[in-house]
């Protein structure tokens, strides 16, 4: 059986990735370039935040100190959030948001697939639903990356710029440490590095159709799993936590 602290850290990393990316996607609501995308992005945000809620709920039970989803989502300090840095990046333009979505979904698809066989039955149950939801996210983001990359000079240029900016953050998805090793040993989750071939294969197929050269990242950027965040995170949390900080304990 895994160490409870590692189990909790693992669940919070996963939940925080989903909460923060869900929050970023929700920022597009009312600002998307077309009505269909104005519906699509909040819908994907709902999937991600729904998955985060289930994960926080489970984290509360694993921790056993009575904390629930709202405590984890709203009442922690920046250093306590363990999401990867890619998901907290500002949305940038539509190409940037779609490419980030593709990176994350292409990683989560094999992750959730493996998690359906997790030795943690609650995680396996969450994965059973999420694995189908993420398949739609990969398709949606993939179609946009192809359309933009194989589109006009302007759209292809924006996609290339997004790729250059996001590439240094991809490695962090596959980072391994004591937490991931304990999860793998306990049969709770795969080592993220084991998912890289599947991730690369998904991207390679889409990038080829998008006529996008695979971006190089000589200097990977990481730190989120240890709670070290970029400047963007503080601004994001100010918005995300505003209601609970202004009206502590507010419920509806």
């Amino acid at each position, binding site marked *: 059986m895994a160490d409870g602290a590692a189990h909790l850290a693992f669940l919070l990393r996963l939940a925080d990735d989903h909460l923060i990316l869900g929050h970023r996607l929700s920022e597009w609501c009312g600002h998307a370039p077309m009505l269909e995308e104005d519906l699509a992005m909040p819908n994907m*945000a709902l999937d991600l935040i729904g998955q985060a809620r289930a994960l926080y709920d489970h984290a509360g039970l694993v921790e056993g100190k009575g904390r629930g989803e709202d405590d984890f989502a709203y009442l922690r300090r920046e250093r306590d959030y363990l999401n990867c840095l890619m998901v907290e990046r500002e949305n940038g333009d539509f190409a940037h948001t779609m490419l980030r979505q593709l990176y994350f979904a292409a990683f989560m698809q094999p992750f959730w697939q493996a998690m359906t066989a997790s030795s943690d039955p609650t995680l396996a149950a969450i994965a059973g*639903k999420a694995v189908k939801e993420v398949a739609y996210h990969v398709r949606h983001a993939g179609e946009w990356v192809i359309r933009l990359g194989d589109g006009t000079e302007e759209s292809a240029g924006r996609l290339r710029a997004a790729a250059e900016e996001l590439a240094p953050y991809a490695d962090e998805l596959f980072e391994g440490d004591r937490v991931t090793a304990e999860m793998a040993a306990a049969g709770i989750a795969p080592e993220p590095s084991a998912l890289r071939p599947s991730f690369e294969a998904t991207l390679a197929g889409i990038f080829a159709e998008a006529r996008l050269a695979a971006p190089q990242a000589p200097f990977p950027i990481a730190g989120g799993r240890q709670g070290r965040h970029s400047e963007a995170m503080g601004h994001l949390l100010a918005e995300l936590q505003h209601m609970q900080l202004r009206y502590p304990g507010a419920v509806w």
Partner: protein
Amino acid sequence: MSVALTRERPAGGDVARAFAAAAAVVDPEIPVLTVADLGILRSVALEDGVAVARLTPTYSGCPAVLAIELAVEAALLEAGFAARVERQLSPAWTTDWITEDGRAKLLAYGIAPPEKAGRSIRALFGEIEVACPRCGSTDTARLSEFGSTACKALYRCRRCAEPFDHFKCI
């Protein structure tokens, strides 16, 4: 205990009545479908005099989940039961659990029903023909992966030119 505050406690033979009360609750977003048509009502049991309904969400982030759970609890109370609703995540809901009756209701309501997926993710993305719920033509195009709710995609019929929702296969 005061009589006025005591709800009628039904005997064990009333499981069917409790199930019928819960099963008649309609989905707030697609009000032609009941929770039984959708297949999200997994079970109703009487446990120590309490009617316990178990429901499973359609999507992780479905915003109607809480409304549906409250409506089922209210329906059971209305039928004279002490009631509790539990959320059951596993096995994960699939559109294959929508009943034949439910599919016919969706079609009549103007939503193209989901095709049967089985268990394979690959089958979700096989080449599928989505027939227009208005004119029946299969000459249709997907406009957006995500429609008015997470469970629907937006299509357009090329023959009658009408847009329509398609209940996605999941």
